[in-house]
């Protein structure tokens, strides 16, 4: 049996550990990798991740398109074209946020403590976690993107590239939001409750489902203040220029707000993670 080296009293093997930026990148990669492995080892999550977009794909592609046209609204834009970005955002929203439930489980099961006493910055922990959730959310969005030709949506290569950019930012922002909420909660039940309280209104008031221009006056400020509104607008504009309507915010502005949203959730998550764990752990 040999536990270590010939230098028993050496403080640590400094020479063999990498430091600084390389270490942070490696830690982020390790945390990201763990989230991906955990995902594909849980069959129910894979089924859910594949089935949800496929279900919407089917429903949107055939089921409801007739009923929407019969209503007469949005006659210039097909139902699928209007509704599609909203569905995409919804799927990203749920996957991204629910991936952060593992923060609560990790703390309860003791996994998180070992991560917290590893010599890595809290920013790296937050980044690894957010990247893991974002990757899973983007993967699901990609399935929906692949379905576009069958739904008669033809954004072209540059449109797809812009859509991926917007979806990446939205995924990042929403995983960050999930992290902020999960970090402060002790039970997964509480997480679900808050999610329903915050997420559903956030999605409904983002213009994903109803055109924001038609909202009543008391809802308008809520829609304008909702950062997700701009994610949906940017995505809609990327996939079908002009589809969002004339009084919708411009693509550049929407993209900017979404970027700030992503940056803000990351920074807030980082601040929270930096606070020493105190009584909550006791």
């Amino acid at each position, binding site marked *: 049996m040999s536990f270590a*080296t010939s230098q028993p009293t050496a403080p*640590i*093997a400094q020479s*063999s550990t990498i430091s600084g930026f390389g*270490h942070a990148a490696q830690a982020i990669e390790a945390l990201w990798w763990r989230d991906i492995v955990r995902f594909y080892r849980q069959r129910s999550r894979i089924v859910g991740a594949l089935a949800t977009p496929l279900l919407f794909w089917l429903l949107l592609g055939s089921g409801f398109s007739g009923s929407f046209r019969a209503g007469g609204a949005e006659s210039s834009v097909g139902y699928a074209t209007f509704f599609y970005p909203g569905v995409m955002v919804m799927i990203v929203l749920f996957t991204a946020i629910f991936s952060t439930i593992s923060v609560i489980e990790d703390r309860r099961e*003791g996994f998180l403590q*070992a991560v917290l006493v590893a010599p890595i910055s809290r920013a790296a922990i937050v980044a690894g976690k957010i990247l893991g959730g974002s990757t899973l959310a983007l993967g699901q969005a990609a399935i929906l993107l692949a379905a576009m030709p069958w739904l008669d949506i033809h954004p072209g290569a540059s449109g797809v590239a812009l859509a991926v950019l917007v979806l990446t930012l939205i995924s990042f922002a929403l995983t960050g939001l999930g992290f902020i909420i999960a970090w402060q909660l002790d039970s997964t039940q509480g997480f679900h409750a808050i999610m329903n309280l915050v997420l559903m209104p956030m999605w409904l008031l983002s213009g994903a489902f109803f055109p924001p221009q038609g909202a009543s006056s008391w809802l308008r400020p809520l829609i304008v203040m909702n950062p997700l509104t701009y994610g949906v607008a940017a995505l809609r504009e990327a996939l079908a220029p002009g589809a969002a309507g004339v009084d919708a915010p411009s693509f550049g502005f929407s993209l900017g707000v979404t970027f700030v949203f992503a940056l803000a959730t990351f920074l807030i998550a980082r601040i929270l993670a930096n606070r020493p764990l105190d009584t909550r752990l006791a």
Partner: protein
Amino acid sequence: MGETIIEACGLGHLYGERRALDKVSFGVPRGEIFGLLGPNGGGKTTLFRILATLIRAGEGRARIDGHDVSDEPHAVRQRLGVAFQSPSLDGLLTVRENLQHHARLQGLGRADTLHRVAELLEAFDLGERAEARVATLSGGLARRVDLARALLHRPAVLLLDEPTTGLDPGARRELWRHLDALRTRDGSTVLVSTHLMEDAERCDRLLLLDRGQVVALDTPENLRHDVGGDVIVVHGGDPQVLADDILRTLGETAAVVDGTCRIRRQRGHEFVPVLFEALPGRIEAISVGRPTLEDVFLQRTGRHLLEERSADE
């Protein structure tokens, strides 16, 4: 004794109104197995978390290998290996994947990670289960993987929180065999928090903590010696009734511990026949032995180690 590697000076901590730690000071020389013994809620966990850099001490300072745990957490974390009460492992990952994941977090390079993981799998006899998912392992085996995890980066100081909780006697002995080997071969310093006598007996020195305060600090041997005399353990019916009768008939104070009645006396063997005569037909079994750490705790605090399972820690 070598240089002091863990140093605590006037540590204190409050959770709201409740004082969890009060003016705790001690030093641990390099290469020692140092035990924190006390009842649940006595302050062990708070002290452990301060040393592990998870919470900041409200008062006082602590240093690990010369680095302040509050001001230089990064330097301290590089030198610490920590195993918590429940193993910090991902059940969905295999044993090898868990170790590799943690080695990456610790900053080991790719080659060093492979080498170190292989080395520890062998040292802890985990080779055959390396590709098994951790969720399928027994508690004892998972604990061993977790200990290996804490040692990946060759920490100078190992902190273990209740490491034998939930282990059967065989697995417990096995764990201690590994800890002893670590100390003798590598000169590692180990700090163990526990509320179990068997664990405490194995430490070089013990810090007895009660209600957040240091009650005693010495070797298990010296602590027992200070109690002095013998301990007579009497079994027979309700221990409290027995203790009351012993006090009434013989004027001797008996403590009720763990369903037994214990009397501390010089020359205990001479007291045994006296007990039999005073309590005819009531005694089912009786033993005379040296004081245990339980007796030490009882004498120093007037309370038992095993009681006071408070809900808040």
